[in-house]
């Protein structure tokens, strides 16, 4: 499916003075798929159709991203994104859902799970921003005024395209996919909006929820591309250690965009998780740094 077809499937709901574009497919228990940055709901186009055969699949564009509201009129922090999603779920009549978050979407998912626990029945974090692992220097750079001034939309998309191709995937992605992921940012409005999104990136927004992750009382799956060059696996391992009962699923042949590098593995594990099957993998060895930190480093 190309990005225009995906956008054609999107619906729009207005929340006060903002609006959210989203895809709503299938029937069954709801699953919310949250994208990261610089992507949009189209990130899930490979996975969503299959999931929709057994679930109601809801794929929003985060505020400021994709084809949701991108005007300069709202806070784009993770906490505000979570509040907007909570209001959006309310409007759709969804009481609780399984929430899957990738990259920045994983940070929003953490906020949602901690702040609105009744909304989140299951939580899956995929190569998620967490702790102090972010913002990535390149993405943070897009928030600097000099960058926004010097780049044209074409050059910015060219730079992001290079970054995605060289760092995001373990396998060579199709040009159509990369073009689709970046399509909403290929205009001046898109570029300025991305700059506003970048300004909102702040490590405090995950740090503030990290200590609370241990209190989550829902099934949690942490899935990670083992070859992720963007967010190293050690952060996924740490999440598993911090969230009681969390299941760890490294995906060996995948990079940051694991749902495209290993779609069948990701789909199968996600199906199992959503259906409540027992874990098939063990928790990782506890990271050395974590042991030292929690038990007190000598000297």
């Amino acid at each position: 499916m190309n990005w225009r077809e995906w956008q054609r499937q999107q619906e729009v709901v207005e929340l006060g003075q903002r609006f959210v574009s989203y895809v709503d497919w299938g029937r069954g228990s709801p699953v919310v798929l949250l994208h990261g940055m610089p992507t949009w709901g189209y990130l899930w186009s490979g996975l969503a159709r299959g999931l929709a055969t057994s679930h109601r699949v809801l794929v929003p564009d985060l505020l400021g991203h994709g084809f949701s509201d991108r005007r300069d009129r709202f806070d784009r922090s993770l906490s505000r994104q979570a509040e907007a999603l909570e209001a959006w779920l309310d409007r759709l009549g969804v009481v609780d859902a399984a929430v899957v978050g990738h990259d920045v979407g994983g940070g929003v998912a953490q906020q949602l799970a901690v702040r609105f626990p009744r909304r989140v029945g299951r939580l899956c974090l995929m190569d998620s921003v967490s702790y102090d692992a972010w913002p990535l220097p390149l993405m943070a750079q897009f928030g600097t005024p000099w960058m926004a001034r010097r780049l044209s939309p074409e050059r910015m998309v060219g730079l992001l395209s290079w970054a995605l191709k060289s760092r995001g995937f373990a396998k060579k992605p199709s040009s159509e996919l990369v073009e689709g992921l970046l399509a909403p940012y290929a205009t001046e409005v898109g570029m300025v909006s991305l700059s506003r999104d970048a300004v909102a990136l702040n490590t405090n927004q995950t740090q503030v929820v990290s200590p609370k992750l241990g209190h989550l009382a829902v099934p949690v799956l942490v899935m990670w591309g083992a070859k992720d060059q963007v967010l190293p696996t050690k952060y996924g391992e740490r999440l598993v250690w911090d969230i009681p009962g969390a299941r760890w699923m490294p995906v060996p042949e995948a990079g940051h965009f694991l749902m495209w590098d290993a779609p069948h593995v990701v789909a199968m594990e996600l199906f199992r998780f959503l259906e409540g099957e027992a874990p098939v993998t063990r928790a990782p060895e506890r990271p050395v740094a974590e042991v030292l930190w929690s038990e007190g480093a000598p000297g």
Partner: protein
Amino acid sequence: MARVKQVSEHRAEGDVERVYHELRQTLRVSGVDVSLRTWAAHPRFFVAMWEALGPNVETRAFEELAAGLWQEVLDTTVRWEVLGAWSAVELGPSQRFHARGALELYEAMQPRVMLMLSAVRLALEGHVVGRRGVPGELERLERGIPSRMAAMEWVAPKPRDATTRTLFADIEKTVGPPGVPGEYRALACWPEYLEAAWRRLKPRMKDDDFRAAAESLRESARRRALALPFEVALSRERVAALGENVEAILKVTQALETRLPSLLLNLSRLVQDVPDILRQPMPGAARLVPDWVAAEELR
């Protein structure tokens, strides 16, 4: 006419950036269109233009003149055949939401820009434009962009997609210089729709009654410009004294003013083709304020 440079919003600096901000606030639109961006390539003229026109543009009288002009356009085209482009293409709900927003934006903006173009052209040709009112005596409009107005989003003037590139070349050739009009670059976000619309709009533009209607609108806009409440203090001598190229500015202003009536007629047909569009999208709140308040609060 050689391709004329435009100053994009994110590249505007100094006084041009300030005037862009003033324009957005006073016209109450979410972006600065092609005509104004083209003028901004002559920055000293651009600032002088805004100093001369701004006191007019912020009044209720200006809005009523523009609304009257737009009503004239609607009355003319409502008798013409239905365009049929909106129903002819397969657009999804999100695409229709955004395309409708783009049309509402241009409907709110272009009649006002037409009045500005007419006023400047007449002033540069030596006419006395505007009455001798005293600024501060008339009802001013509340500044600010209405909350539901869409972002002004454009496809690049030379898009990578060959079909749209060809379409843009045809549009520019048909409507005249300088550059592809903003509404067509906006509608190119949905290329199938733009293609369907242009295929229907173009043949009508050759008809005698279309040309007569465009000429009538041009004259009407000039009459209305002459009736602006405050004198537009702009002349060739003033522009020359500022060190700008008067001939180049006059030439581009004439080109813009020549083509805008045709664009308004087409825009009206596009708007009337959409069943649920808001016909009165942006009524501006008004208040009567003395000059000293305006000096601090509105400027």
